[in-house]
C-alpha cells in the first residue's frame, strides 16, 4: 500500500498544488514541497523498518509489493514492487524532487501552478518507472514521465527551449518506440513459448531461448534505455535538453531521468536477456569507456556553464554503463553508487548554475569571472560539488567510480585503465568550470546576493549526503545487495564478458562469494 | 434475361472508368471534371451491379443505390463549390485554383 501511496501522494500533490495555485502561488509551492517531504518521510520509514528487520524479506529481493489486476484479458496487472535498488532510486527521486521545488522557488514566476503540476507528475512517472513490475505498467510510467518533462522544457525553459524540447522528445520517443517493440515482442515470444499472455516481470523472467529474435528484442530494450542513459552516440539530445530546461527540469533530467535508463538495464535488459546481454557486454563496456572520455572532453570544450555540466552527465553515466556490463558484484554496486552520486553532485551543480543565471542572467563562462569575492558561499558550494564530481576520495562519486573500475579491472584491465583516464579529464572540466566562473579577475557585475537560507538548506542537505556516501556508503551497499546478488547469480553474461576479453578465468571475489555474515555489522 | 461473362462486365466497367479518368486528367474545366467523376462513379456502380447479378443477390444494387446517393451529395456540394469558385476567381480552370497547395 505504501507503494501506491507514494505515487498517489506525488501525483495527487501535483493536482492539489495546481488547484491551490489558482488561489495562492506560495501555497502551491508549499503543497508541492510537503507532498515530496511526505514521500521522503515514507521512504525513510520503509528503509528504517527494513534495516531494523535485519534485511529479512518475504520474497527476496522485494521489500514491498502490491499487485492488482488491471487489464485482465491482456495479462496486464497493476504490479508495483520495491527492492533495494528501487528504494534507493525512489528515495533519490523524492530528495531531488524537494531540491528542485526549492530551487525553483524564486526562479519560476510564470504559470506556477502548472509548473508544479508537471514537475510532480514527472516525478510520479519516474517513481512509477522505478517501481513497476509489469512491463506494460512500466512503459506507461515511462511515457508518463516524458510528456510532462516535454512541457517542463518547452514552457519554462530558456532561449532555445522549443527546439530542445522537440529534440528531447524525438530522441526519447524513438527510444521508447524500440523499447515498446521489445516489450511487445517479448510478450508474444513468451506467449508462444508458454501459452500464457502476461506482462508480468516475474513470469517473463523465466528466460527466453537463445535466438536471433531474442537478440533483436534485447537490442530493442538496450537501445530504449541507451537513449535515456545516454550511451555515447545517442547522447546529443542531452546537452540541449539539460541546457534549455529550467533548473528543476535539469535537476530532474540529470538526477533522475537518466537513472531510469540505468535502472532499465539493471532491472530489465540484463535479467530478461542474460545470454543476449553477454554477447553485447564487451561492446557496451567499450561504449561506456568512450562515453567517460568523450563526455569529459566535450564538457571541457563548452563555454556555456550549464552545457558543461550537462556533458559531465555523459561522462559519469559512462561509468554506470561500464559497471553494469562489467557485471560483477563490485562493478554493479559501484554503478549503483555512481547513479546516486551523480544525481546529487550534478543535480547540485545544475542548481548552482541555475542560481547564477537567476542572479546574472547569463550562463556564459566568458561573461562571468571572479565571482568568488562577491558570492563566496556559492563559490564554496560550487567548489565542493565540482570536487565531488571529479571524484575526490571521501566523496560519493569516488566510491562509485572506484568500485566500478575495480570491478571492471577484473574483467578487462585495459578498459579499466583507459576509463581511469576519466579521472584526469573530469578534473580538467570540473576545475575549469570553477576557474571560469569563480576565479580570475573580478568583473564589474551587478550586485547579487550570496546564497540565502533556502538555497543553503538545499545545498547543505546535498553536501551532507555526498559526504555520507563518501565516507560510509555501507548502508547503501547493504540495501542494494540483494538486488546485486540476484543479478550476479543469474548473470551468465559476467563470465562470458570475462571470457571475451580473454582475461582471468575468475575474479577473486567471485570465488569467495561473500558470506552473508559479512554484511551484518550494521 | 441475358447471361454474360462477368469479366466482360468488369471490362466494360473498367473502360468506362478509365474514360472518366482520362476526362478528369485531360479537362481543365471544372464542370467537365465533375462530369468525369460522375462517369467514374457510374462505372464503379456498374461493376457492383455485374457482381450482384452474378451472385443473384440484391447487394450489388444496394451498393449502386449508395453510390448514387453519394454521387447526388457530391454533385450538390461540388456544383455549389463551382459556383463559389466562379464567384471568387471568375474562372472555371482548375489549374488556376491551386491555393490549397502545401
Amino acid at each position, binding site marked *: 500500500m505504501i507503494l501506491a501511496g507514494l505515487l498517489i501522494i506525488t501525483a495527487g500533490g501535483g493536482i492539489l498544488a495546481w488547484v491551490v495555485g489558482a488561489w495562492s502561488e506560495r501555497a502551491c509551492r508549499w503543497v508541492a514541497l510537503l507532498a515530496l517531504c511526505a514521500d521522503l518521510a515514507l521512504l525513510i520509514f520503509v528503509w528504517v523498518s527494513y534495516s531494523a528487520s535485519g534485511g529479512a524479506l518475504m520474497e527476496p529481493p522485494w521489500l514491498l509489493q502490491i499487485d492488482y489486476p488491471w487489464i485482465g484479458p491482456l495479462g496486464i496487472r497493476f504490479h508495483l514492487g520495491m527492492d533495494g535498488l528501487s528504494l534507493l532510486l525512489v528515495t533519490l527521486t523524492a530528495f531531488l524532487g524537494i531540491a528542485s521545488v526549492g530551487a525553483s522557488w524564486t526562479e519560476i514566476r510564470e504559470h506556477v501552478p502548472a509548473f508544479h503540476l508537471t514537475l510532480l507528475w514527472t516525478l510520479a512517472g519516474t517513481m512509477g518507472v522505478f517501481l513497476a513490475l509489469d512491463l506494460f505498467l512500466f512503459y506507461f510510467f515511462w511515457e508518463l514521465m516524458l510528456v510532462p518533462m516535454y512541457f517542463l522544457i518547452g514552457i519554462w525553459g530558456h532561449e532555445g527551449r522549443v527546439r530542445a524540447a522537440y529534440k528531447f522528445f524525438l530522441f526519447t520517443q524513438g527510444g521508447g518506440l524500440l523499447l515498446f517493440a521489445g516489450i511487445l515482442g517479448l510478450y508474444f515470444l513468451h506467449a508462444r513459448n508458454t501459452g500464457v499472455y502476461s506482462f508480468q516481470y516475474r513470469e517473463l523472467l523465466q528466460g527466453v531461448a537463445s535466438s536471433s529474435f531474442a537478440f533483436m528484442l534485447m537490442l530493442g530494450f538496450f537501445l530504449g534505455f541507451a537513449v535515456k542513459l545516454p550511451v555515447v552516440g545517442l547522447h546529443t539530445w542531452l546537452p540541449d535538453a539539460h541546457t534549455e530546461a529550467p533548473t528543476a527540469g535539469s535537476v530532474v533530467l540529470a538526477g533522475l531521468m537518466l537513472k531510469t535508463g540505468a535502472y532499465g538495464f539493471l532491472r530489465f535488459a540484463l535479467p530478461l536477456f542474460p545470454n543476449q546481454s553477454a554477447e553485447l557486454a564487451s561492446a557496451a563496456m567499450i561504449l561506456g569507456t568512450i562515453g567517460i572520455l568523450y563526455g569529459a572532453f566535450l564538457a571541457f*570544450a563548452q563555454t556555456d556553464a550549464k552545457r558543461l555540466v550537462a556533458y559531465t552527465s555523459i561522462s559519469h553515466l559512462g561509468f554506470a554503463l561500464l559497471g553494469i556490463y562489467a557485471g560483477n558484484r563490485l562493478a554493479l554496486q559501484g554503478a549503483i553508487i555512481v547513479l546516486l552520486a551523480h544525481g546529487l553532485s550534478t543535480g547540485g551543480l545544475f542548481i548552482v548554475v541555475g542560481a547564477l543565471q537567476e542572479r546574472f542572467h547569463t550562463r556564459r563562462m566568458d561573461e562571468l569571472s571572479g565571482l568568488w569575492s562577491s558570492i563566496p558561499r556559492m563559490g564554496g558550494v560550487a567548489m565542493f560539488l565540482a570536487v565531488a564530481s571529479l571524484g575526490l576520495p571521501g566523496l560519493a562519486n569516488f566510491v562509485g567510480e572506484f568500485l566500478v573500475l575495480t570491478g571492471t579491472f577484473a574483467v578487462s584491465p585495459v578498459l*579499466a585503465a583507459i576509463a581511469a*583516464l576519466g579521472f584526469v579529464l573530469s*578534473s580538467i572540466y570540473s576545475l575549469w568550470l570553477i576557474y571560469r566562473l569563480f576565479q*580570475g579577475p573580478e568583473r564589474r557585475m551587478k550586485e547579487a546576493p550570496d546564497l540565502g537560507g533556502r538555497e543553503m538548506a538545499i545545498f547543505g542537505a546535498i553536501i551532507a549526503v555526498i559526504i555520507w556516501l563518501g565516507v560510509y*556508503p555501507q548502508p547503501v551497499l547493504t540495501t542494494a545487495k540483494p538486488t546485486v546478488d540476484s543479478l550476479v547469480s543469474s548473470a551468465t553474461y559476467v563470465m562470458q564478458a570475462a571470457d571475451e576479453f580473454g582475461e582471468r578465468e575468475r575474479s577473486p571475489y567471485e570465488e569467495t562469494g561473500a558470506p552473508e555474515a559479512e554484511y551484518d555489522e550494521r | 434475361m441475358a447471361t454474360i461473362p462477368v469479366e466482360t462486365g468488369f471490362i466494360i466497367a473498367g473502360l468506362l472508368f478509365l474514360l472518366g479518368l482520362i476526362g478528369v486528367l485531360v479537362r481543365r474545366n471544372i464542370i467537365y471534371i465533375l462530369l468525369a467523376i460522375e462517369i467514374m462513379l457510374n462505372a464503379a456502380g456498374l461493376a457492383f451491379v455485374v457482381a450482384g447479378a452474378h451472385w443473384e443477390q440484391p447487394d450489388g444494387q444496394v451498393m449502386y443505390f449508395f453510390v448514387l446517393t453519394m454521387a447526388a451529395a457530391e454533385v450538390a456540394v461540388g456544383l455549389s463549390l463551382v459556383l463559389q469558385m466562379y464567384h471568387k476567381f471568375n474562372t472555371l480552370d482548375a489549374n488556376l485554383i491551386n491555393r490549397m497547395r502545401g
Partner: protein
Amino acid sequence: MLSLLWLVPILPLVGFAILAVTAGQLARKAVSVIAVGAVSLSALIAIGITVAYTITAPAGTVYSQTLWQWMRVGNFAPAVALHLDALSMTMMVVVAFVSALIHIYSTGFMADDTGYSRFFAYMNLFVGAMLTLVLADNLLLLYLGWEGVGLCSYLLIGFWYRDPDNVRAALKAFFVTRIGDTAFAIGIFLLFTSLGTLNIPAVLDEISTYAPGSTLPTAAAALLLVGAMAKSAQLPLQTWLPDAMAGPTPVSALIHAATMVTAGVYLIARMHTLFVMAPAVLLAVAIIGAVTQLVASFSALTQYDIKRILAYSTISQIGYMFLALGVGAWAAAIYHFGTHAFFKAALFLGAGVVIKMLDEEHDIFKMGGLRHRYPLTFWAFLFAALTLAAVPPLTITFNSKDLILNQAFLSKGGRGLWILGLIGTFLTAAYTFRMVFVVFFGPAQSRPEKTPARSMVAPFVVLAFLGAIAGIPELLTAIFGSQNLSSFLRSALPGPTRDFPSADGPWLFQLIYVATALAGIAVAYLLYERAPQYTRSVVSTSVGSWLHRWWFADWGFDWLYQKLFVGPYVVLARINRNDVVDLFYKGLALISRVINGLLSSTVNGNVRWYVAAVAGGAVIVVGLVVIL
C-alpha cells in the same frame, strides 16, 4: 597514549569543518585559535605518541586502530584504519610538527589577507589529509589522503585566485599530479584484483610470495612509481612544482617543500617490499632520482625568483630521496625527508620573511645586503643553507645526503649514480650560496622599513635550528654507536644492503663530499660576490645564453607538453565544441527536411495533378499485385 592516534588526523579535519561551516564569519583571532590550536594539539599528541612508542613499542612494533568499516563488497573491504609503525610515526611526527610551526608562521604572514579564514581552513584540511595519507592502513585510505593533499595543494596554490596565472598554476599542479594519481589508482586496481586485499601489510606479505621481477610486482610498482613521480615532482612530471610557487609562501614551505611532495617518497618506502620485488622499477627509481636532481639543480642555478630557486632545489632534493630509495637506502631516504622537511621549510619561511619585508619582491637581484637589516633572518637562513649544501660546521658528518651517496656508491652498478649525485652536491652548494650571496651580501638595493612579526621569525629559526642539528643523532652513532634513526626505522624498513668494508671508508668519502660542497660555495662566492662580471660575460656568450635560457625554462619540458598535450587537447576541444556526433543527427534532420521539401512541392493544389498521382499509384499497386 597510542589510543589517541585517531585524534592526530581528525583534529585538523575538525578545525577545517568548523572553519568551512562558519565560512569567514569568525574573527581572525578565533580563526587563528581554532586552526593553530587544532594542528598544534595534533602535533602535541603526535609527539606524545612518538614518545610512548619509543619507550614501549607495541607488540610487533605496529599499532593499528580501526575507526570504521569504510565499505564492504565481497572481499573488497577497505576500512578507515590507522597504521602506526616506525616509518609512519616518523613521517607523522615530522609532518605534524612542521605543520604546527608553519601554521604559527602563517598567522603572521597572512595577517592582513582578506581570505584569512579560508586560508586556514585549507591548511587544516591539508594537514588532516596528509596525516591520513601517512597513517593509512590500506591503499584506498592512503589514496584518499593522497588525493586530499593534491586538492589542498590546488586550493592553496590558487589561493589568490584573482590572478589567472595563479589559478593556471594551481590547475597545472592538480592536472599533472592527477595523471600520476590515475596511474596510482590503476596500480591499486591491479593489486586488489590480483591479491584480493588492499591492506598494506597484507599486500606486502602477499607480494613477497611472487618471484622477484615477475610481471605483477613490476607492473604494480611501475604504476605506483608514476603516481609517486607526479606527486614528488620527479622527471618528467616535475613541471608543476616551480609554477606552484604562485601560492602563499607558507604553503610552499609546508606543501611544496616539507610534506606533500615527499608523499611519493613515503609511498615507495611504505611499499618497499613491492619495489624490491621489482628490481627493474627500483633501478628506474634510482635513475629518475639521480637525473632529476641534476636537471633541477641546473635549472635552480638560472632562476631569479627566490621561490623558484627553492622549488627547483626541492625537486632536486627529492631526487636524492628517490636515489636513496632506488639503491635500497630506505632509512636514508626517510632521514633525508626529515632533515629536508626542516631545512627546506626554514629556507622557504626565510624567503617568505624577505619577500614580505620587501613588499612581495621575488627577484633576488633586486634584493641584496639584507644581512645587516635582518641579522636573525640572515643567520637562520644561512644555517639552513649550509644544511642544504651539506657543509660543516654543525651538520658536520653523516648528513642525510652523504648517507645516500654512500649507499649509492656501494650499490651494485651505482658508481654512475654516485657521480651524478656528487655533481649534484656541487651544484646544490653553488645555487644555494648564489642565492645567499645575492640576497644577503653585496650592495643593498633597497631600504626596507618593516620588521618581521615575531610569530614569523620564531618558527623559522626553530626549523633552521632543527634542520641543522638533525645531523647530530647520526653523528653520535658514528662516534658512540648509539641508537639512531636508521636502526629505529629498521623495524619497518630493511636496513642498508651493504656496508663499507673498512671503518675508514665513510670518513674518506665524507671528505670528498665536504670538499665538493665547499667547492660549490667557493664558486658561488667567486661568481656572484667577488666577480659578478664573469657570470655576466659567460651568460652573454651565445652558448651560455642558450644554455641559460634552456635551463631557465626548465629544460623545455613545459614547451614540449604544451605542444604535445595541452595544445592539441584544447584545439581539438574547441573544434569539437558542437560535438561531431550531433552532425549525424543534424544530417538526419536535414535529410528529412529535404524529403519534406520534395514531397510538399508535390502538394501543389492542382486537382488534376492529384488525380494523376492517384492513377499512377493505382497503376503501380495493381501492377505489383499482378506481377507478384
